[in-house]
């Protein structure tokens, strides 16, 4: 692909999109959100038609007018949101739209054999007759890859495939990708996790502001140079500095050891959370990590009243709470910034201001009538304070970048007087520059005396941000690391896996 341009009303999404993919190569495509990666990939997948530029496959100039043409040319795109049908089995999903049939009658046997062969090639021992809905996210991802393989794809595009996976699952995915590579398939790999790029990829292309910046073998990149070319300036560090020892509120790095703001005692819920006790102190960022499925999100939902525990107690400022709904938790000053902002954190089709008002309407209305001007003023303050970049308060939440969306969610809870903030994967899907801003905000909040529980799968983030680390495994707390300065990724991992 060379010199690809694409304009949308008001935005030049692509000015100079370029990508060269060799067969048998894993090629990283990097850039901040809005850099034009997804537009470029959508041109490749036939979802958008380009305004200009050329696209060649095996040296032959082609035009891709529709997703069907793209598939016919051997291009398979695996999006973050899977295109699978939960009620059908693995086999039925694999063959959806290209069933093996004669005169309309399905040849189940032939499909089964081919499905088994495909699954075997990916080294999974799944039964093709399992309903897809019963699979984990990682397994579903495997099925997406199998589907791409079954269509004889020669070019596979993966958009942040590891966003929802945990360490071991990532290993399995990487093994599958290396398999693809060995069989001559070219893989375009989009990820915000830089570690993965160095582990997996052969070359990396960086885009910025809709244009190609550089393509180099990964051996010629390093973490700093990648980030630099992505944000277009040198970043001194990935994480803001820790508060110094004479910080007035916390009186030292970490937290005020005596002032426990949130405490959980012996929380249990089914098989997901088993006898969990933990506490978060004033001014502290407690990092909670572990593999996906270790019960971290489930624990956060208990603390937020979204689910009810079978047993156990929750205290805020030493007062026992009876949380029956998120409403109760919000009243007690607890808020949850969910990992899935688009589905759980924001109402995408409402304006930013409406989203901001959602938990705060009792405060922003008189006798049930909304006070629009008060709402505008209050939100305006937070837009400024949190530096939310938006053309206006009336903008739909859908149209903002991940980092700014996260800030809007944070704004709505800060205005709701949240004192205990549960961050579930606070920077998932957020680009490098905006990540730093979120980190700075988290530090500021802690310095203002809030108690922060940060759930994260990204170990560098946990090590860089948390004052204290708790690791979960199989629904239980498997260990605590009180002094982060001594902690290593290996130490956390050994607590996280069996």
């Amino acid at each position, binding site marked *: 692909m060379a010199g690809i341009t694409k304009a*949308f*009303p008001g935005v030049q999404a692509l000015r100079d999109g370029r990508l060269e993919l060799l067969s048998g190569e894993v090629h990283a495509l990097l850039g901040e959100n809005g850099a034009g990666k997804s537009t470029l990939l959508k041109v490749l997948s036939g979802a958008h038609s380009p305004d200009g530029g050329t696209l060649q496959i095996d040296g032959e100039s082609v035009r891709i007018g529709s997703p069907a043409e793209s598939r016919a040319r051997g291009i398979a795109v695996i999006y973050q949101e899977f295109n699978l049908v939960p009620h059908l089995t693995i086999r039925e999903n694999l063959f959806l739209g290209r069933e093996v049939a004669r005169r309309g009658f399905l040849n189940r046997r032939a499909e089964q054999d081919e499905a088994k062969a495909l699954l075997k090639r990916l080294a999974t021992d799944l039964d093709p007759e399992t309903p897809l809905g019963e699979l984990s996210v990682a397994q579903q991802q495997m099925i997406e890859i199998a589907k791409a393989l079954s269509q004889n794809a020669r070019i596979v595009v993966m958009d942040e495939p590891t966003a929802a996976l945990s360490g071991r699952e990532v290993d399995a995915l990487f093994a599958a990708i290396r398999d693809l590579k060995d069989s001559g398939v070219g893989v375009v790999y989009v990820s915000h996790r830089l570690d993965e790029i160095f582990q997996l990829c052969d070359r990396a292309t960086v885009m910025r502001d809709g244009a190609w910046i550089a393509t180099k073998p990964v051996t010629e990149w390093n973490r700093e140079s990648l980030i630099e070319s992505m944000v277009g300036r040198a970043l001194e560090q990935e994480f803001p500095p820790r508060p110094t020892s004479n910080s007035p509120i916390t009186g030292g790095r970490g937290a005020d050891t005596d002032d426990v703001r949130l405490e959980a005692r012996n929380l249990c819920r089914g098989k997901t959370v088993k006898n969990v006790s933990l506490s978060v102190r004033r001014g502290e960022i407690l990092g909670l990590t572990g593999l996906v499925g270790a019960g971290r999100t489930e624990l956060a939902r208990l603390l*937020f009243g*979204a689910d009810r525990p079978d047993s156990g107690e929750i205290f805020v400022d030493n007062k026992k709470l009876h949380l029956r*709904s*998120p*409403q109760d*938790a*919000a*009243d007690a000053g607890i808020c*949850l910034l*969910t990992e899935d902002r688009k*589905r*759980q*954190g*924001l*109402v*995408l*089709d*409402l304006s930013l201001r*409406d989203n901001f*008002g*959602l*938990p705060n*309407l*009792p405060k922003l*209305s008189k006798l*049930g*009538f*909304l006070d629009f001007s008060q709402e505008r003023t209050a939100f305006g303050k937070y837009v400024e304070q949190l530096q939310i970049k938006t053309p206006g308060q009336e903008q739909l939440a859908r149209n903002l970048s991940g980092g700014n969306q996260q800030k809007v969610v944070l704004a*709505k809870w800060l205005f*709701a007087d949240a004192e205990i903030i549960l961050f579930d994967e606070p920077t998932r899907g957020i680009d490098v520059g905006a990540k730093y801003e979120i980190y700075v905000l988290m530090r500021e909040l802690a310095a203002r005396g809030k108690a922060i529980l940060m759930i994260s799968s990204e170990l560098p983030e946990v090590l860089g941000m948390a004052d204290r680390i708790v690791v979960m495994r199989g629904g239980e707390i498997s260990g605590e690391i009180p002094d982060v300065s001594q902690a290593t990724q290996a130490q956390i991992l050994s607590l996280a896996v069996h």
Partner: protein
Amino acid sequence: MIKRLSQSRELSVVVVLVVLCLAMAFTDQRGNFFGSRNLNIILQQVALLSLFGIGETIVIITGGIDLSLGSLIAFTGMLCALFLGMFSVGLLAVPALLFALTLALLAALAIGLLQASLVHKLKLPPFVVTLTALLVLRSQSLILNKQLPISVSDKPLLLNLSSVELSRGAPLLVILALVAVLAHVLLSRTRIGRYLYAIGSNETATRLSGVNVFKVKLFAYGASALLGGLAGVLFASYSGQGDPQIGAGYELDAVAAAVVGGASLTGGRGSVLGTILGALLLNTILSAINLTLSSPDIWRGTVVGGVLLFAVLVSAFQQKGSSE
């Protein structure tokens, strides 16, 4: 102008209405269409459909649907006629009517609240819950007086309620105006209104924002049933009897009016003004075919269906335009 027109649903419905009226002005030589008798009928039909159409719209905004309205109209009409007969024996006309009205509306409200509870607490699909109510209430209406209607033709107070004649104070139009203004203010300027749209757009995110979703749904289904009940009483007034057979299919007319007015069955969209205009458009078209075709009844479904399909196509076109 064209751009604005293509974006505002209310405006485009008005334009279609104007075109339709102009067409009638030219083709309808004898002046039947614009005769006061015909206009009165249209006005009554529009007002009645708008009343429960607004209720339907409120439920549709939350992403639900209320299929019970047709039977509810019959049921509350029967109840009102029944109570009125009972109370008229010992009471003066005014308190008797007030008691009967109140009881019928309370029954409707209770039915709405029950439906909301089933939908929210037991996580049953609104379609199934309200379909059940549609079936049960129809049969209960028939049971109430052994399949027979209950006449209210000797109760002038009730009969007058559905009048749209200015000389009689046009009580039906006054009721509609009150309900419409109230509902419009509620949807656009109050807390509960904002919650209704938020739930219809993304219920999970709304719940996780600390909003009591159950309360909002109680309101939505309660309001729909209450307006359905009010329409039921007014239909009894209109037809001079509590009629157990009345209202079959009305719930779908209400859905059609809401959708023509810009409501989306996936939730999060809809307005009071849109629904009233939708009701106006549907009834104007129906009246037009009534006057121009020799057998209008058999064409009714085709025409309503055609209008509905056209409205949905326009919505799809508009959404595509705004998402590109």
